[in-house]
């Protein structure tokens, strides 16, 4: 038996102005299809607590939920161990609907940036307005983080979580650690 490992083995950085933690294994499933198709919507709704996120939104609680990626792509988050059975359940529910379901859990990495200056750390790396008014709970933003793509959302606990490609996990962790290094406060959107 092989045991799954996350990209950086749960790396963390805590000596700076924000805390960076790699998220342990996270189940991630990509559903490609017409998100306006009633069958696709009915299939996805239970994962969004009975509702679907609109463009630029996500309905995520802890390690479960939905995130709107594009008009024909929804990301389904679920516990890592449940990914395979969730893929099967989605495919079953979709029936003949024209859609594609793929387990991408091991193709991605995820990080949590926490602490009062978490928003400033990400604002150093992305061309995004991270003020609490412009980027609030329920929103989901795909963007550029320095030189790689990332998707970011605010969590209930006030921290920000992001996903990136697994092959870029080390680059992203190093980026975040440098952006959060001690003495690098910018004081734009300090919270709490």
């Amino acid at each position: 038996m092989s045991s799954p490992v996350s990209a950086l083995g749960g790396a963390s950085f805590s000596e700076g102005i924000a805390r960076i933690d790699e998220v342990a294994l996270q189940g991630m499933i990509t559903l490609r299809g017409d998100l306006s198709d009633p069958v696709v919507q009915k299939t996805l709704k239970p994962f969004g607590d009975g509702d679907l996120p609109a463009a630029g939104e996500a309905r995520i609680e802890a390690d479960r939920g939905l995130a709107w990626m594009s008009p024909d792509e929804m990301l389904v988050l679920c516990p890592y161990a449940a990914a395979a059975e969730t893929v099967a359940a989605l495919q079953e529910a979709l029936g003949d609907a024209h859609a594609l379901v793929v387990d991408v859990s091991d193709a991605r990495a995820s990080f949590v940036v926490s602490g009062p200056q978490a928003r400033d750390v990400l604002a150093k790396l992305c061309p995004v307005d991270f003020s609490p008014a412009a980027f609030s709970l329920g929103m989901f933003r795909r963007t550029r983080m320095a030189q790689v793509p990332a998707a970011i959302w605010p969590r209930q606990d006030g921290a920000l979580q992001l996903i990136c490609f697994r092959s870029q996990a080390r680059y992203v962790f190093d980026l975040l650690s440098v952006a959060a290094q001690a003495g690098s406060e910018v004081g734009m959107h300090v919270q709490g």
Partner: protein
Amino acid sequence: MLILTCPVCGVRAEETEFHGGGEAHLKRFGPGSSEEDFQEYLFMRENPRGVHFERWRHAYGCGKWFHAARCTTTLEVFGTYPAQTLEPPKDLRAKISKKRPGWTWRSLT
């Protein structure tokens, strides 16, 4: 700084979140076309100082293509519109006419 609004996902972001895709509304000439048409299609591009129409892709965002009308000298963006169209929408052209009276671009005015 060039700031674009993706008409697909609604995100407003600066240029580096997107990727330029060259001139908009090109008509493809392939096998069976005249050499002149094929040559025009392959090599001849507008390079205006002023009003321009381009293709852009929201490369780091939703990944979709769209069209943008902008001014190449001021970087003012007059508007963005869906990729699934052969010419700029009328209301956008009227808006450009208000801001840049007498503008021309290929056969458009």
